[in-house]
């Protein structure tokens, strides 16, 4: 093989490899993005059913209930405008509390109940998960425009 055709093969192989890698990355990216919705958006039907997404807000006061097994927990996430009922089985994070911010990831059932596979709470006492803060802010803005 001549040096020139060797080089061509090397470059060609490299380009093919890169193209395959880019295709892989982009398709994985498309399939695995998890979108975030506020409780208000979920109530308005903007959230997908059957697909994983996240909801953020406050854990509503007095909403935490445990089933008899002690492991399945029901609670509600609110952005102060709308309330979404959530069920979750597993250990809750240390900082999960009523009246505090939380983010849940899971799917929305046809009954309007959100089945969480993951519950994230704040990292420390003062810090609110950004998604939760965002949801409250949105609801607050919406509330103001309605009242005007």
């Amino acid at each position: 093989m001549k040096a020139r055709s060797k080089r061509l093969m090397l470059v060609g192989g490299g380009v093919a490899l890169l193209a395959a890698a880019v295709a892989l990355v982009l398709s994985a990216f498309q399939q695995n993005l998890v979108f975030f919705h506020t409780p208000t958006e979920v109530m308005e039907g903007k959230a997908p059913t059957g697909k994983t997404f996240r909801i953020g807000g406050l854990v509503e006061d007095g909403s935490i209930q445990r089933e008899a097994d002690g492991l399945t927990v029901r609670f509600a996430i609110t952005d102060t405008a709308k309330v979404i009922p959530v069920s979750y089985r597993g250990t809750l994070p240390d900082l999960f509390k009523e009246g505090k911010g939380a983010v849940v990831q899971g799917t929305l059932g046809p009954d309007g109940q959100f089945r969480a596979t993951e519950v994230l709470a704040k990292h420390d006492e003062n810090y609110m998960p950004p998604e939760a803060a965002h949801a409250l802010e949105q609801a607050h803005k919406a509330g103001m425009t309605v009242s005007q």
Partner: protein
Amino acid sequence: MIPELGHFALVLAFVLALVQAVVPLVGAARNNQSMMAVARPAAQGQFLFIVFAYGCLTWAFITSDFSVQLAATNSHSETPLMYKITGVWGNHEGSLLLWAMSLSLWTVAVTVFSRNLPDAFMARVIGVLGFVSLGFIAFMLVTSNPFDRLLPGAPQGRDLNPLLQDPGMIIHPPLLYMGYVGFSVAFAFAIAALLTGRFDAAWARWSRPWTTVAWVFLTAGIAVGSGWAYYELGWGGWWFWDPVENASFIPWLVGTALMHSLAVTEKRGAFRSWTVLLAISAFSLSLLGTFLVRSGVITSVHAFATDPARGMFILALLVIVIGVSLLLYAWRAPKLTGGGSFGLVSRDTTLLGNNVLLAVVAASVLLGTLYPLFLDALNLGKISVGPPYFEAVFVPLMTPVVVLMMFGPFLRWKNDEMGAVVRRLAPAAVVSVLTGVGVAFAIGNPTWRTMLGISLAAWVVLTSFQLLAARLKDRHGGTTSSRLSTIPAAWWGMWLAHFGVGIFIIGVTLVGSIESNLDLRMKEGQQADFAGYTVKFRGVVEADGPNYDAMRATIDLSRDGRAIATLQPEKRVYRAMGMPMTEAALDIGVFRDVYVSLGEQLPEGDWIVSLHYKPFISWIWAGCIFMVLGGILAAADRRYRRLAERSAPAGAAAHAA
């Protein structure tokens, strides 16, 4: 008074950094010996002042001087001494000071260990490092002064985040920073080479041990961080593809590519322009990683808006470092053509392939990490990119890397024959695939993931031993032990690090395939069966620590009536912040960990107990230890020292003249 002294020392360090950045570079350009000679003392003086400043800040933490803002927000009079000391870097300002101190330490190390470098080259390297230091100290002095006073002083501090009050967090940040910052040396060598246009084998040989040592620190730092997440976060995961982790993993991937690319540049003179680009990228990504983690952008992009000065400074610094070095690269790189040519089947090709793949992996991790931040910053919506994306990308891209990794050492540089290598490695390949399929069925987990993982691990382990056997057979004459002793340390380093990758893959694959988890509601005295073990919950007592109140459970672990361990997980509440924390308890073994953590207490006095069975997780850490040891061996190879000795007389003569 002491904080003011620290602040003043930092100002003096800034002045010395300015001298170190400007004078030697001007001297090198004008070929002025006395100006170049300023490099060493300026760098060493700067180091002393930074260490002094760091000592002053530590003093404020140890003595609980809560008139220092940073101590008031990150320490508490009841915090154990160890965590008062480590609390210094558990925050933005203090970690910047630690960063500057590691940079200074690396610079001093260069002045001490690279005496054999030509004076002009050395002056340029130290000058470039001076510029980086200048940027960092300026950033601290202008926007993030660690010595800011709080007047009037707080009566009590707010304590260090309890998650960071852990032995793992004592060594993780310094290791990680030594790794991040260590790439600044390879970066400075690359920039110095771009300035002079000198890119010979000597340049690559000088850069190699520095890059390898930085890589060793980074590997160790990431591994310790991962271990910390495993036992401290309370649910037994060891890697989350969290932006904070990715920030350190991206420079690791590029640094790994750089280490290998430098090898080709040294041995064959090839890939020179690619090596320079990698050196620039590795350091730039380290900078980006530091800022991502420390500026608060990850928790909220809008944290930038609350302190625009800080955000703008960071962006400016990044743009200057990346922009100037890329401009220099664009100007000089066209001169870097040539170098050794090589055939399609050669060690050079396998290294090139792996370099490109590692760069693609790094880019895809970077994409997944930054994309949500961009969308959020532009108010285009909030998304998160979780582990499924990273796994979907990482596994297929790293598979060929692992395969090629073991092909390379069997091939000759420049040109080799495909047929011969395939014939040599075919048996190992067949046995690997059979092992993968066999093990997957044997452990009752016949998934693609398990088959692929075990096959790859078997491939690495088998070919490693085949490589060792071949190496011993190649040498003519002598006994096996005499042939063993002729193998250079660098070869053992390569062998051990690659072998470590195999061990690591075994751990990752098996823990992912056959781990199990059970959350239980337990009463005092209750027993449960879990993963072949019997778990007995003996109850909970109060057990208060120096700065926290805790409930401590006692759980007996036994198997077939034989006691194995007594585990005592805790649920703590740190008094200063009122922050609850789960402290898991582990029974660590070679083939499995049993991991127990305490969940909530239920109204009736029962507790939720979370049990994890983690097979082969120790192999993940063992793999990392092999990689680290391999790196140390490679960097300690005699030929780097021989080089120093050989050129030492010439250097001494130059000094005398």
